[in-house]
């Protein structure tokens, strides 16, 4: 089994705040890793470090077996890494199609505009916003913007996809749709790390779960095993009964 991503003892500080402390995990090719943890646990920061937005103070990141610690985001994109943002970042004054074309043009496959436009149309119908293709991205609603984030990342045909809370703010039926989308991306052979608060969904899609709390990893393993870990339940909500309830609702 080849490892697509290796995070080794990564530490990241913001001034006095220790956002990540010696975080370590591996992701095997073609697998989905669910990354969970309470608000402010450091999940998005971990993505930023993997993705080259921040350089970690300590530790190493290996992508496709190569040490990529300290590399720029665009270098990682050229190697086949793509991500979505928790707070969506649409290119507002460009059309939805153009947003996605950019993803295809500048990803590791380096398409020209014509082939990028073809990919964009495929991806837009895959995530279900084809009808909006000629609209300005700024005019989409939140759920559509989340899909656009996803479409732009997918258009790069990444080897590794980092999804940061793509389900947040969606209705239950939209969540079901998005979960199916994620699973079919996985079936195309893309490796995925997915941050999510919706427990039921993340348990359905993840091969493994990884739990962060105050920048520390507190558990890792199969979904069932991890969510029944008392340490996780306690950290996650501070109250085991609440956690149980949330999981049943989720």
């Amino acid at each position, binding site marked *: 089994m080849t490892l697509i991503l290796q995070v080794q003892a990564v530490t990241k500080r913001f001034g006095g705040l220790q956002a990540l402390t010696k975080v370590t995990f591996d992701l095997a090719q073609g697998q989905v890793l669910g990354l969970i943890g309470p608000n402010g646990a450091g999940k998005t920061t971990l993505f930023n470090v993997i993705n080259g937005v921040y350089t970690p103070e300590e530790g190493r990141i290996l992508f496709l077996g190569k040490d990529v610690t300290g590399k720029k*985001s*665009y270098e990682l994109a050229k190697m086949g890494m793509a991500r979505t943002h928790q707070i969506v*970042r649409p*290119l507002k*004054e460009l059309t939805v199609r153009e947003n996605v074309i*950019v993803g295809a043009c*500048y990803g590791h496959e380096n398409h*020209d*505009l014509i082939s990028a436009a073809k990919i964009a149309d495929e991806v837009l119908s895959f995530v279900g916003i084809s009808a909006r293709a000629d609209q300005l991205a700024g005019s989409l609603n939140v759920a559509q913007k989340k899909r656009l984030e996803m479409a732009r990342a997918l258009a*790069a045909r990444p080897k590794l996809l980092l999804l940061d809370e793509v389900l947040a703010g969606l209705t239950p039926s939209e969540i079901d749709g998005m979960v199916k989308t994620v699973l079919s991306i996985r079936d195309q052979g893309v490796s995925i790390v997915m941050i999510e608060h919706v427990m039921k969904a993340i348990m359905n899609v993840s091969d493994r779960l990884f739990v962060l709390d105050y920048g520390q990893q507190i558990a890792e393993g199969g979904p069932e095993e991890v969510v029944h870990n008392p340490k996780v339940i306690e950290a996650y909500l501070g109250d085991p009964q609440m956690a149980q309830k949330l999981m049943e609702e989720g």
Partner: protein
Amino acid sequence: MRKIWLNPGFWLVLAIVVALGAWPIFQQDAAARETGFTVLLAIVMASSLNIVMGYTGYVSFGHVVFYGIGGYIGMYFIDSLGLPLPVAVLFGGLSSALLAFLLGKAILRLRGAYFALATIGVNEAARTFVANFQPFGAATGIELQFSVYKAYGGALQALWLVYYGVVGIAIFSVIFSYYIKTSKFGLGLMTIREDEDAAEVIGIVTPNAKTWAYVLSAILPGMLGVLFFFKNGNVEPGDAFRLGFSIESLVMIMLGGQGTVLGPVLGALGYQRLRGTLLTSDLMIGSLPLKDFQLVISGFLMLLIILFIPSGLVGWLRQRFATLRRVLA
């Protein structure tokens, strides 16, 4: 989107510039030609600045530095080395491009207001340097011998020759501007404008893309500088690096609509019309003639645009009437 020749918006903007350029030629009229010079220069300055400001989102107050440096280098080559005008024009463009390349690596790392301030600094530094640089005639500048024009069939003939050059460059500038806007490179620039951090995550090598945008915006002003100072017969630091000229280019872009191809053209035309009217007006404000208020008025104009139509005329029309999007590039 891709095929330039199929897009009516491209033909519209091209037709406007060709008509503007050709009119004085058909008239064979010196006054019309002088107006043509001014308007076409404005169009090229605005269109080229638009690549950095409108497409890439980096506001520059120092665009005139490329006009000035190109002009000085070209004049030096003509005056001291006796090179023919077309060669000097090429060297003018190349030296501006080189300057932009070196500057780009240094100051395009700054964002927003810091970049804008740095561009002013660069222009002032260039002016001070040239004003003390002996080979360029220091504070008095470079003055061409009248005999230089003999090679071009006399001064009168040379004026028309320069005019054809300016028309050619102006036509090229809008084709160039359109081409960049509809290219993959241009899409990358607009991505940077919309969100530079997202652009990096998507895979755009932003330092290179920005530097290239800057270089491409510098070439045509550099070439025009040579033509204009050749036409004037002299170049001085104050004319070559006039900050007000940069600001006027900026106002023209904002007036017409930044980020569009047609906007800078209409903005340049509109602004020059207004300026022409002011300059020839006999109106007095108190004891001062109205024409002294030109920069005050352009400042006020900019304020109004920012407040009421931040996307400029073309941008406003495109938002208002979606059907016009195909026609207004």
